[in-house]
């Protein structure tokens, strides 16, 4: 056999290390090794890895472990252990009448014992993708074990989010998983050639029950010829993680610099993450040094890639080195202008050079937009912002449409922002809204995040649209266009539960003389603990006019909101045996709950979004304290002074360390900030990252506690 590359492949070397090759081949590899240091190193590495694995440090077996086991026995708990091997499916012996009888007896025996459910429960759901590292365009075999979650389903939907190297992304139904005789669900998925990253989740055919792997999804990155993830694939994964797990995204950024240390893109990306995390001076010192190394390397390259030059320019811009950025943008020149990174660096430079000259900036942006292939969200965004500042509707329309091709999810947010800018914007926004309203109100499953059920998505979407319509209506009202304001308010009033929007809608109805509707909507806003004081402040006249009626409206609204909130509740027990630490002393997670509704928040000092939340958490702790609920921070990697200053300013906050990760693992937390709202009995009822949702949820649970009502809406396994 001839080795194509001139060297035996790694698998062959690995088999050589185990002596698994035929004698002739073994000798041939041995002969090659004598002359080839690279392959010799691979074989040596196989052995070093095994040696290192055998000498890995292990934890100490403490007597406490034994005492706990004996205590369990003393409490009559028994565990049925697997004393026989599983046996390979292919070689499994047929089940005889005798073994079936023994199995039946065992079942009876089990019934008479207190059996540890943990050892007997069915496997949790899991999804496997093969190959785990596909090449572009490859067909994936997907195998899913549905566990108890989908026990009654024969077909499931496999949803996917695909990402390309050019930052395009879309969500789709990737396939239908069909349950086989062995209980596993299977399907094949052909990856489009352009896809470099894909994330998956599974749900029932109605999108009601879903398994998103604890919101971590299952994902794959496309590999290159060397079998490792391509830089494009890693960058796409990073972008996907950015919003759902910032800490993991930062890990990917660091991994990019390890795998691709000579690529400016790796370092420019890592720099953007580290700016928000560490001391600014040291970040700049480190990255300036890296930049100089990369710049030297690229300068010595006779034919540097335009892509690399574009990323180097972007890195220079981040570091504030405008001169270097200009140099590298110029060098990338016309031949690289079609690349978004080159065009975006040029865009930044022109925005700096022509600051204030909006028409000139827009004119140059038009050139760039025409040049860049596949569009650029950054250019579209700057075009939109500049056009908005200029206030010319036709230009705004053009740039808004361009922007929304890339970020369709942000339409309502953008317009609400735009409508506030100038009086001229009002007519633009109201016209745009009228044109787009049917589209806004249409359910678009393609925009639904993979981890969100159809019901939850609809709830969020409608609340968002309600807020948008209320905002535009308010602006129309301020500008004297009562008719438009009322029309929008009529459309928005029963859409969802956006408390800010409800306040604005109430004001519109009051202005047009519909006091009854204004009071009803105000009461709905006041039902949300986060907005109670704002609503009462605004609605003094309405609530004082007929106090009894107001109280009735408020009670009714609170019941409606509780019902709305509890509809989205889960039911999961807080696991026992999870060790935390408080000032070096061990504490059990279950002991942290003091028979009060408790909000657990995982925080990390390596997560910029988590750090951003600290101020809000201080405010939240005061509100919770007033409601008789607790706020507990679970610090996963030593927040140190940050946590201390938070506790000093808000003494009711309790902080525990989860450095070992046992609480994260037990709760299935994969990111920070991550919030778990636990009822007074220690059951997890809500899990998310939306701090603004917490007070509503705590209020609903406190109310439940008072009535003794139990909600058993439990789709999670």
């Amino acid at each position, binding site marked *: 056999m001839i080795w194509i590359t001139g060297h035996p492949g*790694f*698998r062959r070397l*690995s*088999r050589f290390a*185990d002596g698994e090759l035929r004698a002739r081949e073994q000798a041939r590899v041995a002969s090659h090794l004598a002359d080839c240091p690279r392959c010799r190193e691979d074989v040596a*590495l*196989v052995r*070093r*890895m*095994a*040696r*290192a*694995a*055998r*000498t*890995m*440090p*292990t*934890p*100490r*077996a403490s007597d406490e*472990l*034994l005492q706990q*086991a*004996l205590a*369990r*026995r003393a409490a009559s708990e*028994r*565990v*049925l*252990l*697997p*004393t026989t*091997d*599983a*046996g*390979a499916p*292919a070689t499994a012996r047929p089940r005889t009448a005798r073994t079936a009888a023994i199995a039946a007896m065992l079942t009876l025996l089990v019934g008479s014992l207190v059996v*540890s459910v*943990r*050892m007997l429960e069915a496997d*949790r759901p*899991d999804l496997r993708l093969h190959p785990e590292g596909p090449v572009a365009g490859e067909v994936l075999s997907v195998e899913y074990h549905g566990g108890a979650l989908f026990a009654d389903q024969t077909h499931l939907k496999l949803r996917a989010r695909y990402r390309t190297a050019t930052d395009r992304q879309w969500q789709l139904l990737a396939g239908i998983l069909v349950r086989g005789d062995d209980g596993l669900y299977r399907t094949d998925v052909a990856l489009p050639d352009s896809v470099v990253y894909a994330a998956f989740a599974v749900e029932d055919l109605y999108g009601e029950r879903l398994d998103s*792997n*604890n919101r*971590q999804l299952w994902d794959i990155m496309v590999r290159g010829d060397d*079998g*490792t993830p391509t830089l494009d694939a890693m960058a796409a994964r990073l972008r996907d993680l950015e919003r759902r797990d910032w800490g993991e995204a930062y890990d990917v950024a660091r991994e990019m610099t390890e795998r691709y240390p000579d690529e400016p893109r790796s370092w420019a990306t890592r720099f953007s993450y580290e700016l928000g995390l560490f001391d600014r001076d040291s970040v700049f010192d480190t990255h300036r040094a890296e930049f100089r190394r990369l710049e030297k390397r690229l300068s010595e390259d006779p034919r540097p890639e335009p892509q690399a030059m574009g990323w180097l320019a972007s890195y220079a811009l981040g570091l504030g080195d405008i001169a270097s950025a200009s140099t590298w943008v110029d060098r990338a020149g016309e031949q690289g202008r079609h690349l978004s990174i080159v065009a975006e660096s040029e865009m930044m430079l022109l925005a700096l050079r022509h600051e204030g000259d909006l028409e000139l900036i827009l004119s140059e942006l038009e050139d760039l937009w025409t040049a860049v292939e596949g569009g650029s969200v950054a250019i579209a965004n700057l075009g939109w912002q500049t056009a908005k500042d200029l206030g010319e509707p036709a230009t705004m329309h053009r740039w808004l449409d361009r922007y929304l091709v890339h970020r369709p999810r942000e339409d309502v947010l953008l317009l609400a922002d735009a409508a506030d800018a100038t009086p001229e914007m009002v007519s633009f926004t109201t016209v745009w809204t009228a044109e787009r309203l049917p589209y806004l109100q249409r359910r678009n499953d393609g925009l639904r995040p993979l981890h969100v059920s159809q019901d939850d998505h609809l709830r969020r979407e409608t609340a968002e649209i309600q807020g948008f319509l209320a905002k535009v209506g308010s602006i129309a009202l301020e500008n004297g266009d009562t008719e438009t304001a009322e029309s929008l308010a009529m459309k928005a009033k029963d859409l969802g539960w956006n408390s800010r929007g409800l306040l604005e809608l109430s004001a519109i109805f009051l202005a047009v003389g519909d006091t009854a509707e204004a009071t009803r909507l105000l009461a709905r806003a006041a039902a949300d603990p986060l907005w109670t004081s704002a609503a009462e402040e605004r609605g003094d006249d309405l609530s004082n006019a007929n106090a009894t009626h107001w109280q009735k409206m408020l009670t009714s609204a609170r019941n409606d909101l509780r019902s709305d909130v509890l509809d989205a509740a889960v039911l999961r027990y807080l696991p026992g*045996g999870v060790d935390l630490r408080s000032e070096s002393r061990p504490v059990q997670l279950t002991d942290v709950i003091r028979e009060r509704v408790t909000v657990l928040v995982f925080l990390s000092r390596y997560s910029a979004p988590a750090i951003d939340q600290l101020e809000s958490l201080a405010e939240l702790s005061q509100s919770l304290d007033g409601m008789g609920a607790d706020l507990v921070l679970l610090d*996963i*990697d030593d927040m140190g002074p940050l946590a201390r200053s938070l506790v000093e300013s808000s003494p009711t906050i309790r902080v525990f360390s989860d*450095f*070992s*990760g*046992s609480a*994260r*693992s*037990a709760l*299935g937390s*994969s990111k920070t900030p991550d919030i778990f709202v636990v009822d007074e009995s220690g059951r997890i009822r809500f899990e998310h990252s939306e701090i603004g949702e917490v007070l509503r949820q705590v209020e609903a649970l406190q109310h439940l506690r008072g009535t003794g009502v139990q909600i058993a809406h439990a789709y999670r396994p």
Partner: protein
Amino acid sequence: MGQYGPGDPANERMAPRPDEAGLLAGARAGNHEALSELFHQYGQQMLDVAYRTTGSTHDAEDVVQDIFAGLPEALRGYDGTGSFGAWLRRLVARVSLLWLRRERRRSRRDQRAAEEGAGEVSPVSVEARLTLERVLKRMPVELRSVYVLKEVEGYPHADVADLLGISIAASQTRLHRARHFLRDRLRGKL
């Protein structure tokens, strides 16, 4: 059997003691003193196997605790013909694998979890071992279980295949894939 026979050092680690028969009889009857003695003799080695297989202190402790909670009943299935140490080690591996399958979806743990363990002197640097441990935790479960059972615990492929319910060829393939996975991430670091 493969390259590790009954006299192999891999099995010696849990070798039977002379007074073991009496001890096992006591444990079988649920006697706490006998169970405590077995724990003192085998607990650390059991925790080592469980920890390497599950990659988590917490899980490993749960595995060992579960085994002691169920050992008297399980001992009824041990007929005394083979080495008790080998039987127990196999049981630990089997329970750890079940645990691992059940816990597979749990989130990746922080590297700090790896730093909990007490260090021991070895020719491989502490940093390298921690790096390896971190990478091992990221390895897909089906590869890691083969790698640990074969390379660390010293089971031959036939036993690995039995324990995991896969074919011998699959065990061999997974071992090579596991090494490939490690090599990609450890080259130049070990």
